[in-house]
């Protein structure tokens, strides 16, 4: 997608070529593309770790890895997928889309933008290098609960520093998003006229700024506990291991919505486009997103109902968690109402968006079940939870990202992807994702805890199915890579308005868009 931008590049603007172009670029499209490619690579790195996990769990008994390495895989899989795959993908989409959706020439802070991307490869090199150290990588789960995480070896400070760098990158990215949206909208585009994807990203950026420093504080305290003798989380020194969990989840729960709010924005963009009908209840969508964001700060302890909180605390966090079902329900109902009496077609982006609604809602249902504290005492830390959060993250966040790529790829490159292959990718992905994660509900309810490398034989059948599904899912993503390269090889033929039902400023630009997007601000009525 980069070569075409070169051709359209303004003559007066001399930039380096080759690798230096990518290292020094301040262009939102270049940076957006780098974020997306980086995310794709990390998606495969994290995916390979998931396949190590699923291969070991294919049968009871240990066949492939020792338990210590298994724990490193579960820990790293989560860190890589959350911070390396899903978050950078959303930031990449923000980079590409925000300026062209609000009628701006570029992001507000281009140099900052360059920096926030280039932190990532270094952070992940450092984090992944721990797998090759004598002590191995972090193995206490991505939640890094002490005292277990404090038992980590020499790799511990590398992991902490990598997390600091990732947090820094996210905060800088979020500052850029807020500055861009608040200052660079085209004249006439009031806040309540912004595309819904822009709204969801604005709210996500505030969540990032509020929650990332909390994570930085928590992991710094871990670091000083381990190396400088502080006893923040060490009971024998007057510290409190549970306090870490409170601080971590005060970050962790907003983080969950950081991973899903932009996905809501994408689905709210794609469903109207292929229903040829305006989004139902735009205002209530915005308010629902804002309420979810606000509620996300007062529900954190539902991740830790079993730590022995006082009854009043358990009841409070149960009620606030249940409340989240209301704005989330409003969103789902509004999507269905948008489709209702529309004129639908089912191109690949729409298929992924529809599957998102169904499968994300299933994840929402299990989330509601998990909110019930008495039942959660049974669900907590079982595969039921694993099924729940993979339903909202894989057919949730990841499907939305795939939908967005199919939807905007012709705009970005000026080249149309192969629709037949896109649909093949969709059906393979959807079948295998359910084959992987649906049986996890059953083994979880039947009593299989999460994060175990080996299990009792009564869980064997469903685990075998899940493993088959996981390998199928992984292989299906190679179809996606093929589609990408196949598309990039083509000639520029896509129309400016690729989808006849699509609305928004980005479709008024050429495909691919000019280097500086909107040199003159468009007028929005």
């Amino acid at each position, binding site marked *: 997608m980069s070569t075409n931008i070169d051709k359209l590049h303004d003559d007066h603007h001399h930039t380096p070529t080759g690798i230096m172009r990518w290292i020094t670029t301040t262009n939102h499209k270049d940076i957006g593309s780098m974020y997306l490619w980086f995310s794709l690579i990390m998606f495969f790195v994290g995916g390979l770790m998931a396949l190590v996990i699923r291969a070991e769990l294919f049968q009871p008994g240990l066949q492939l890895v020792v338990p210590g390495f298994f724990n490193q895989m579960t820990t790293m899989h989560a860190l890589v997928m959350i911070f390396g795959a899903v978050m950078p993908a959303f930031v990449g989409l923000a980079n590409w889309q925000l300026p062209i959706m609000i009628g701006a020439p570029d992001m507000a802070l281009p140099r900052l933008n360059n920096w926030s991307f280039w932190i990532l490869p270094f952070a992940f090199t450092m984090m992944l290098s721990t797998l090759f150290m004598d002590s191995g990588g972090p193995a206490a789960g991505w939640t890094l609960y002490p005292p277990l995480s404090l038992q980590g070896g020499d790799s511990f400070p590398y992991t902490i520093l990598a997390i600091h760098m990732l947090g820094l990158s996210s905060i800088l990215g979020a500052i850029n998003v807020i500055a861009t949206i608040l200052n660079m909208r085209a004249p006439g585009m009031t806040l309540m006229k912004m595309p819904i994807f822009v709204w969801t990203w604005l709210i996500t950026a505030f969540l990032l700024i509020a929650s990332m420093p909390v994570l930085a504080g928590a992991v710094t305290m871990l670091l000083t506990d381990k190396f400088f003798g502080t006893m923040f989380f060490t009971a024998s020194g007057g510290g409190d291991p549970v306090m870490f969990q409170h601080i971590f989840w005060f970050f962790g729960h907003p983080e969950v919505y950081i991973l899903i709010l932009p996905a809501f924005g994408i689905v709210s963009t794609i469903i109207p486009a292929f229903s040829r009908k305006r989004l139902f209840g735009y205002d209530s969508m915005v308010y629902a997103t804002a309420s979810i964001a606000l509620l996300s700060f007062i529900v954190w302890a539902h991740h830790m109902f079993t730590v022995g909180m006082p009854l009043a605390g358990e009841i409070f966090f149960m009620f606030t968690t249940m409340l989240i079902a209301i704005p989330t329900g409003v969103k789902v109902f509004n999507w269905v109402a948008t489709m209702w009496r529309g004129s*639908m077609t089912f191109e690949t982006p729409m298929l992924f968006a529809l599957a998102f609604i169904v499968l994300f809602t299933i994840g929402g249902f299990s989330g509601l079940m998990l909110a019930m504290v008495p039942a959660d005492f049974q669900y907590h830390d079982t595969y039921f939870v694993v099924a729940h959060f993979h339903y909202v993250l894989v057919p949730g966040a990841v499907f939305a990202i795939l939908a967005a790529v199919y939807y905007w790829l012709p705009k970005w490159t000026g080249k149309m992807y192969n629709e037949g292959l896109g649909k093949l990718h969709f059906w393979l992905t959807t079948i295998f994702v359910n084959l992987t994660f649906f049986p996890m509900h059953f083994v979880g309810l039947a*009593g299989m805890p999460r994060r175990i490398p080996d299990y009792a034989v009564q869980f064997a059948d469903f685990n075998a199915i899940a493993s088959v599904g996981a390998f199928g899912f992984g292989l299906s993503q190679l179809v996606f890579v093929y589609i990408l390269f196949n598309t990039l090889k083509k000639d520029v033929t896509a129309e400016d308005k690729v989808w006849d039902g699509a609305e928004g400023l980005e479709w008024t630009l050429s495909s691919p868009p000019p280097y500086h997007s909107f040199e003159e601000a468009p007028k929005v009525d």
Partner: protein
Amino acid sequence: MRISNILLMVIFPVTAFAEWETNMPRGVTPTSEVAYDLHMLIFYITVVIGILVFGAMLYSIIYHRKSLGHEPAKFHESTKVEIIWTVIPFIILVGMAVPATKALIMMEDTRDSEITLKVTGYQWMWQYEYLEDNVTFFSKIDTESNTARRLNSGVDVKNVNNYLRNVDNAIVLPINTKVRILLTANDVIHAWWVPELGGKKDAIPGYVNELWVDIQEPGTYRGQCAELCGKDHGFMPIVVHAVSKPEYYKWVGIQKTNKVAKNK
């Protein structure tokens, strides 16, 4: 077959479900029963909501498509409808919150217990102390499972008796007795969980958490550690033998005799 299983099978059609456990066990304690009932209540509610929402979606996908020549309608908001689908979920949630809160208050009430069992988590075993009866022992995975679970041990784990679910020293508890379980840990956080006896609770260094069970039926109940506690987290089983009260006191007597014998 339970209705729940049939529903689950409809959602996920696999032909042979004969031996495959797909649902939470109802268990044998008041706490496990309320958890199960609440679980099923919410499961059915979500199934009904799912049928309505996905049904509307499916109808729309089938009939409101361009290939059938369906023209898009122009509506894009309706305050009335939006208020309705904000208020109705709220009412449903209140309907769920009331039984959940009642159940929770019951579960957290550890008063009036007859026996207190203190559980301490270690990497990677459990220590049990019967505070009134003065019996103490450690409990870890049995030798047969422990040998079979080694990487490439060459043992077919399907032939191992209760693979990963058997211990050297099992807990013995009397039935129809309210037993308070105190939980703590000596190194890292563990969680003590036997599904059929109700929910789990974390065993945390520096904390003493509480849990209670009142087992209604004699039998052997198995569980394991449920909080990641290091490399052998998957190998910390829990076995509870529930017996009648006279048998329980007979067992206590034997434990004490053994202890006296050991000390001589």
